């Protein structure tokens, strides 16, 4: 009896402490009788000790640098898009290129086309094998119906698959049983003409529930551009639905879908004519993004469960010089169970990608990769070496892809809980990044090189010497997958109303892509021959058929080091505060005659503070401040304050006023334009008003 009680105490403690620790509503190490039995918290907890994978069970015990952004933080902050919500995560790099486009990553250098961060909605991946980009601007998820956003800084390769070297962002939406009723909000302000959300949810008999939602956004251009007038308007319409079924306690299922239609203005720079030079221009991008996902979960017993998930993603984009079409189909099976002190997870996955691209002046495919298949398996075991004190986790994921063949991603972790309120963890993991098609297959036209820059011989004839030769970023099949090994260590402590989360890492990546210039000197010899024969016209004509390749090669090494500190304080229910500091260094080790493809040697520091205060009845103030100090983006350091005041003036109605980027002034957040064809704009302070109704 006593023994059962002791065990119960431990379980309850672990359960409540773990789940809630990283939320701002910290449950600290307190006597059990003081534990938070708030209904909201209870409803958020899993009954299973095993939980569906692609989900972090307990943030406190997790042997990786995880941060959970709670639904309270998302709604209190007044964020109007997913990237804005991600600004609330300490240690995440969230830089805005213009009013539509974002560069987001952790533990590395963010890029508009960053291939190393895996983004998922309810476990559905949004990775595109062509550009390795996430289209943040068209990723529509109703923020008011998000349960939480789990962010893993660092390698998430094992459970989540390839291309998760820098981190994983998993957006988990609410079960529709928790979103019954009507929700509506309307926002307008200095950068948003209008942003309207509407949702209706209800029961389906006593076996399920559903919600329908729609979203319309009309956004303004930025105030100030760098070389062109800003054109970054947004016109977006989105609709979605989610059904949840619970025929009985053992089985549950969900089906959800979303379609988003966007028209986005953008300033580009690209080679579009015979001058072979980059030309700046303004264009509209029309995109249609659709997704459907279905999942069946089965509780086999109290200590085993299984999950089957299938999803479909379709994205098409159309702009004057680029037509793209991408579809993917995923199927995942996972099973988790406990046997004695061993917790075992295993799973199988298959992904089919269909990529079609109209020939364009930018991108030319070498062909052969219109469809890509990917399949794999994973197994992970967690064993208690000392019950409730020391756990070892060992696992491996093996996956096959059509570009680089079989890849394996093993890991080993140790979790030690010297006391109930302290966790020390360490981990060694290997992670793989499969090249995108741009790197592996395509030729991307880039700013032309002048003859006298690349040819050892000059002719003295300006028409020839100053001629810009067509230049390609040449993706090729010699490109290998990038492999990185990461050593991580972390410590978590809760004491009274305080919580501390420390993590540090050292990651070494090899076979990283770099660029080497192949001037192909021989191609100029006939031209010099023609010149010597006095045939200038013919020489000029031949010159137009020459080209220079910026070949992608997999011979660089990158070392990244850094760490994160997050201190949370919640002295009472009506006040909490968080202070964070992140430090990251990024260093290339390049072979001779090569230069970096993504990012360059740099050091980034971020100081972060946020607070959520209930000032007096029905009034709430949410503030966050970010001090961004980095030489990785070719821009000045900046400090931005976001402030939101919310007033619930009626039991169904509330109003908010939000100030974004305050005190930062007109600033540029990202200027690595060599890596992107987007021309950034100045990011300005903005004010938004919002009215919210719930029935």
């Amino acid at each position, binding site marked *: 009896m006593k023994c059962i*009680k002791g065990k119960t105490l431990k379980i309850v403690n672990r359960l409540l402490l773990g789940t809630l620790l990283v939320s701002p509503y910290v449950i600290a190490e307190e006597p059990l009788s003081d534990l938070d039995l708030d*209904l909201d918290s209870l409803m958020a*907890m*899993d009954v299973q*000790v095993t939980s569906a994978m692609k989900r972090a069970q307990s943030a406190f015990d997790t042997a990786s640098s995880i941060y959970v952004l709670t639904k309270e933080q998302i709604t209190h902050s007044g964020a109007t898009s997913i990237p804005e919500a991600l600004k609330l995560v300490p240690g995440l790099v969230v830089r805005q290129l213009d009013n539509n486009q974002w560069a987001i990553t952790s533990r590395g250098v963010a890029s508009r086309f960053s291939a190393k961060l895996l983004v998922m909605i309810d476990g559905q991946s949004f990775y595109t094998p062509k550009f390795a980009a996430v289209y943040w601007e068209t990723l529509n998820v109703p923020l008011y119906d998000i349960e939480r956003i789990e962010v893993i800084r660092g390698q998430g390769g094992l459970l989540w698959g390839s291309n998760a070297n820098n981190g994983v962002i998993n957006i988990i939406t609410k*079960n529709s049983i928790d979103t019954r009723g009507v929700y509506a909000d309307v926002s307008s302000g200095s950068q948003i003409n209008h942003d309207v959300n509407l949702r209706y949810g209800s029961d389906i008999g006593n076996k399920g529930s559903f919600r329908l939602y729609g979203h319309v956004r009309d956004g303004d251009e930025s105030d100030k551009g760098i070389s062109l007038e800003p054109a970054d308007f947004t016109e977006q319409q989105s609709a979605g639905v989610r059904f949840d079924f619970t025929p*009985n306690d053992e089985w549950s299922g969900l089906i959800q879908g979303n379609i988003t239609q966007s028209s986005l203005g953008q300033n580009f720079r690209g080679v579009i004519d015979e001058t072979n030079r980059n030309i700046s221009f303004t264009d509209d991008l029309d995109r249609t993004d659709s997704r459907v996902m279905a999942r069946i979960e089965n509780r086999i017993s109290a200590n085993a469960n299984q999950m089957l998930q299938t999803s479909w993603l379709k994205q098409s984009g159309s702009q004057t010089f680029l037509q793209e079409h991408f579809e993917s189909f995923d199927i995942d099976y996972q099973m988790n169970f406990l046997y004695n002190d061993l917790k075992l997870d295993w799973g199988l996955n298959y992904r089919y990608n269909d990529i079609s691209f109209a020939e364009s002046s930018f991108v030319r495919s070498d062909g052969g990769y219109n469809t890509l298949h990917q399949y794999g398996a994973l197994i992970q075991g967690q064993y208690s070496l000392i019950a409730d004190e020391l756990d070892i986790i060992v696992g491996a994921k093996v996956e096959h892809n059509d570009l680089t063949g079989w890849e394996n991603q093993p890991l080993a972790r140790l979790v030690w809980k010297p006391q109930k309120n302290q966790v020390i963890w360490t981990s060694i993991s290997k992670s793989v990044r499969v090249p995108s098609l741009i790197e592996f297959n395509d030729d991307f036209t880039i700013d032309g090189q002048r003859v006298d820059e690349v040819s050892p011989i000059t002719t003295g004839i300006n028409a020839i010497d100053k001629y810009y030769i067509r230049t390609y970023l040449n993706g090729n099949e010699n490109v290998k997958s990038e492999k990185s090994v990461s050593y991580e260590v972390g410590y978590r402590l809760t004491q009274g109303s305080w919580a501390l989360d420390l993590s540090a890492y050292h990651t070494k990546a090899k076979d990283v892509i770099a660029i080497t210039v192949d001037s192909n000197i021989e191609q100029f010899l006939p031209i010099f021959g023609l010149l010597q024969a006095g045939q200038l016209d013919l020489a000029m004509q031949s010159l137009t058929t020459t080209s220079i390749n910026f070949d992608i090669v997999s011979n660089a090494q990158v070392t990244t080091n850094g760490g994160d500190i997050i201190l949370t304080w919640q002295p009472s229910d009506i006040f909490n505060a968080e202070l964070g500091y992140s430090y990251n260094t990024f260093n290339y080790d390049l072979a001779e005659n090569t230069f970096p493809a993504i990012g360059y040697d740099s050091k980034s520091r971020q100081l972060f503070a946020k607070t959520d205060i209930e000032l007096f009845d029905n009034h709430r103030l949410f503030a966050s401040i970010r001090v961004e100090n980095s030489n990785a983006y070719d821009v000045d350091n900046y400090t931005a304050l976001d402030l939101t005041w919310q007033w619930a003036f009626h039991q169904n109605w509330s109003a908010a006023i939000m100030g974004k980027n305050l005190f930062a002034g007109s600033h540029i957040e990202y200027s690595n334009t060599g890596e992107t064809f987007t021309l950034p704009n100045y990011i300005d302070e903005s004010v938004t008003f919002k009215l919210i109704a719930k029935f």
Partner: protein
Amino acid sequence: MQKIKRVFLGLTLPLLLIQSQSVNAIDTEYALKAGFLFNFARYSEWTDTSNAVDHFVLCSPDRDFIDIASTVLSNRKVNNLPISTKTVSLTDADLSQCQVLFITSDTLNQWLNSTLGKLNNIMIVGETEDFITQGGQIRFFLSSGKIRFEVSPEKLTAAQITMSSKVLRLGRVVEL
């Protein structure tokens, strides 16, 4: 007798070890359900105040559940009354001291086979499929591994209990 017990334990110990995690998993579920029951009590009003009580009593015929609930709910209060937890047998006399009665799946048969008078002023909660038609007012169910509940406000009213709309809103309302 003790010796027999010890021998028996020794023999079954390996088996118990295999079962041990299973016990843990059930503990988790019952710890959470105890928390829900606490909230049901907190946000409800027992309108029949003819019997003055000095304790708020949570009952169940399931001893394992009561063991867990007593840990989770120790030193908690409902309407300024301290909560006590009791393992009861399903008799009118035993149940007369309860404000909340939880019938677990293991004790459902006891409940179905019991011959009880009209249970007034008691919130009766279950976790099995048709529990509300079997005399309960509230029933827990699981959706994607999380606890949710069905509630019949009519039946609660009939038992002279009023539940706050704050909680009703979170449940699935059953009209009978």
